[in-house]
């Protein structure tokens, strides 16, 4: 049951889609969303964005065609990290910030699993920031879903590493001094191969991003804007309000021109940056056609900066989708290479390696 060679050839083609699941067995079982409900009572606050994400995720999982027992959800600590309890797969609700590290050990030793990390802005970017960037740069075959509500929920409302500067909270009564992380910029800085952003309330978009993440072999990073109705309600309201959202949301589609609403679009700016301009004034031909497959993360990074000032124009969709060999694949190749060169290890020969001598007589 535990593969100790893990070479791609050992499992072979499984016939399913999703390149990120090449080594994972597939099932003919026709799962429904309800097959992924664990029966545990869901204990998030009424109106929490996590409900919408859970429902979208449960509806999406049957698409993978992966046996339920080959899916593992690993989380850290925080509201979002209760996620695994509500899914009928294997799961671990671990310790604060460490889920990417735990998932790295699991995914690296079990290429036959579909491994998902569920984290939040505090768990993933504060206490666990180090593990997150290293998992992304190594390109371990995991999918990281970061629920960003820009606040600490479980500890009752302190500012988080994505809260805006000046945020008034219990721990910052006269305003927080911290400059926030942009999670997408951070992931791109770590040269993650797959980086995307979506919103809890847009089920169709959320599902399309999950699908693209699962299709990507190696580390996928998905930031999900998630509303906390108790401690940071309506943090993303300008992106949800029908009267303002079209002017602010930049829906990126690979190969399509980057447009906001009816009249604006994205063109190349100074110093390698990007600018939002009026399409009629600038001319249709100057619009950039989105290319998620650019090797250099600089373009995707420039896209991620378009949300400054805050929420002026916010790209959602896939920023970057670039393939390179995964960490687990390379590690398992090293094992396969060692075995083809040296054969499977023999313990007695190992112990007797080096200079030995023999004592014939007993004392």
């Amino acid at each position: 049951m535990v593969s100790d060679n893990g070479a791609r050839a050992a499992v072979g083609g499984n016939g399913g889609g999703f390149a990120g699941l090449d080594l994972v067995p597939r099932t003919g079982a026709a799962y429904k969303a309800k097959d992924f409900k664990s029966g545990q009572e869901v204990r998030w606050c009424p109106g929490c964005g996590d409900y919408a994400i859970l429902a979208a995720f449960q509806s999406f999982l049957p698409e993978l065609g992966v046996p339920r027992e080959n899916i593992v959800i690993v989380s850290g600590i925080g509201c979002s990290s209760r996620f695994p309890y509500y899914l009928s797969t294997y799961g671990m609700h671990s310790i604060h910030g460490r889920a990417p590290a735990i998932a790295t050990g699991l995914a690296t030793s079990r290429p036959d699993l579909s491994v998902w990390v569920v984290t939040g802005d505090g768990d993933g970017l504060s206490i666990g920031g180090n593990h997150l960037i290293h998992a992304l740069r190594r390109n371990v075959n995991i999918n990281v879903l970061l629920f960003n509500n820009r606040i600490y929920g479980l500890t009752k409302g302190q500012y988080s590493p994505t809260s805006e500067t000046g945020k008034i909270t219990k721990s910052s009564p006269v305003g927080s001094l911290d400059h926030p992380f942009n999670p997408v910029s951070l992931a791109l800085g770590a040269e993650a191969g797959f980086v995307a952003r979506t919103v809890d309330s847009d089920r169709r978009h959320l599902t399309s991003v999950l699908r693209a993440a699962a299709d990507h072999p190696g580390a996928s990073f998905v930031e999900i804007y998630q509303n906390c109705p108790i401690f940071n309600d309506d943090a993303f309201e300008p992106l949800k309000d029908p009267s303002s959202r079209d002017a602010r949301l930049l829906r990126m589609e690979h190969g399509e021109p980057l447009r906001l609403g009816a009249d604006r679009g994205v063109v190349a700016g100074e110093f390698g940056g990007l600018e939002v301009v009026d399409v009629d004034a600038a001319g249709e031909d100057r619009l950039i056609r989105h290319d998620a497959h650019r090797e250099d993360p600089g373009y995707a990074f420039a896209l991620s900066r378009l949300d400054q000032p805050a929420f002026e124009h916010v790209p959602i969709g896939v920023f970057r989708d670039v393939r390179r060999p995964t960490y687990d694949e390379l590690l398992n190749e090293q094992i396969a290479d060692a075995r083809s060169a040296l054969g499977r290890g023999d313990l007695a020969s190992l112990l007797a390696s080096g200079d030995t001598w023999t004592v014939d007589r007993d004392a």
Partner: protein
Amino acid sequence: MAKQIEQLDRVIIRFAGDSGDGMQLTGDRFTQETASFGNDLSTLPNFPAEIRAPAGTLPGVSSFQLHFADHDIVTPGDAPDVLVAMNPAALKANLDDLPRGATVIVNTDEFTRRSLAKVGYDADPLTDGTLDGFKVSAVPLTSMTVEALAEADVSKKDAQRAKNMFALGLLSWMYNRPTEGTRAFLKTKFAKKPAILAANLAAFQAGWNFGETTEDFAVSYEIKPARLPAGTYRNITGNLATAYGLIAGSQRSGLPLFLGSYPITPASDILHELSRHKQFGVRTFQAEDEIAGVGAALGAAFGGALGVTTTSGPGMVLKQEAVGLAVMTELPLVVIDVQRAGPSTGMPTKTEQADLLMALYGRNGESPLPVVAPSSPADCFDTALEAVRLAITYRTPVVVLSDGYLANGSEPWRLPEVDALPEIDPGFATAPNGPDGSFLPYERDSDTLARPWAVPGTAGLEHRIGGIEKHASTGDISYTPANHDLMVRTRQGKIDAIARDVPPVDVSDPTGDADVLVLGWGGTYGSITAAVRRVRRSGGRIAQAHLRHLNPFPANLGEVLRGYDRVVVPEINLGQLALLLRGRYLVDVIGYNKVRGLPFRAEELAGVLQEVIDRGE
């Protein structure tokens, strides 16, 4: 003219020089020659944490001590019979450890006014009487090496660097060591640098020839092979034995080994060694930090691998939260702490035994786990294997407390028969264990109290675990007061019950009527045993016992302690085992504690034991 050969039963040699002089290599080669000759031996490398401290200074001195004999020995020895000092710093740093009458071989080329001044010698110790009472051999090692390599195709600097091989050649002659191993070693090491190889071989031979021809060395020595039990032997350090023990655990359990680790002195060699054995299916993961190292190991364990993490004290501190998660999730995990002098960064290359209480109690909540400690470099193999067995059998993290002395020290090891090593059955859960085909991840085995280990990929056993308190059977989140009390007691009871699976502590009491027991644990076994032998040789009656299992203790330990009038517990800490024994057994043990970053001296310890014996007379 054939020179006189004198028979000795044992010798202690210390090679000392600058950290760049290759003293560890020289010591290691002399050790290998000695091992292959069949002497029993024990080594003590001692080096600074700085990679290259300023040349010629006291902090830059690196040394390697080797004790070898024609009989069974257990320590690297208290005081050298022979000191090889490559420069004034090496002489000054080591002279206080030498008994009068010892032999001092000095490299006179380095005894320049400048080098002497650098270490605070106002006058030349070779001539001002400092060395009166020692047998001094003043040898211009550097210039003789350069002279011997006059024809060689190497720079003067490279020629000078070969002086350690000249010294090794000379000592190899003095003690009639076999030299084929060193020649073969050099050929492999410098295979791609033929000129350097030729220079080192020539320097080694020149050193040997110098001993044989010069009148300065009238006598050479012979130490007959030791009478050891029959078998095949190799010399092994503690870290290497630990790595082999882990591979053996993987092989005997059929579980692929996953090591998550972050480099730290003195544990890194285990990571280095395991990373070389991928053909055994070993995955080594050099993590971004100590926490990720243990986290990845635990993740791999969740997936059914043999999860291992290796570290030293400062790293152990960082891992404790994840070790607590392993206690809570009841997953197998082996945590190896190669203890070093603390607190904080402490003295990274020096040994200590002060992590015992941290291993036992350094986590939040009631967080029990088994703790084992090896007693010698070779014993690291058996102890690592035992840790794997306990971890898998009882679904628990296990801490192994090795130490810097064991890690780098070495001794001959009789190779075990692989088929005789214990077989370890992972016993993965394969079928539902609850009503109506349900799976209860915390429903326990009635014998071991271990919970089922159901790994992802097993259909029908899907379950969620985590750090939150869980229902005693279903594993679902539970905050019920009575359930928490039950779970706290059950986790403790599971570990306590391992005592039934731990061999009773074995007491050596040859006269059968000793009043005093000396009890140790871990890396002090050699020093305590040597001290006990001294006491007994001079007629003292003393019993000795040594603990491998620190938690749970062997079931008969209380009875053993109460069987003696006085119990002495020597530790390289301020009395951590003593505290545990007093608390557990209400026995007023007598601690003996020295925390110098070095092993106990047998002579000093023998004095302490004799003094305790004398109290009763």
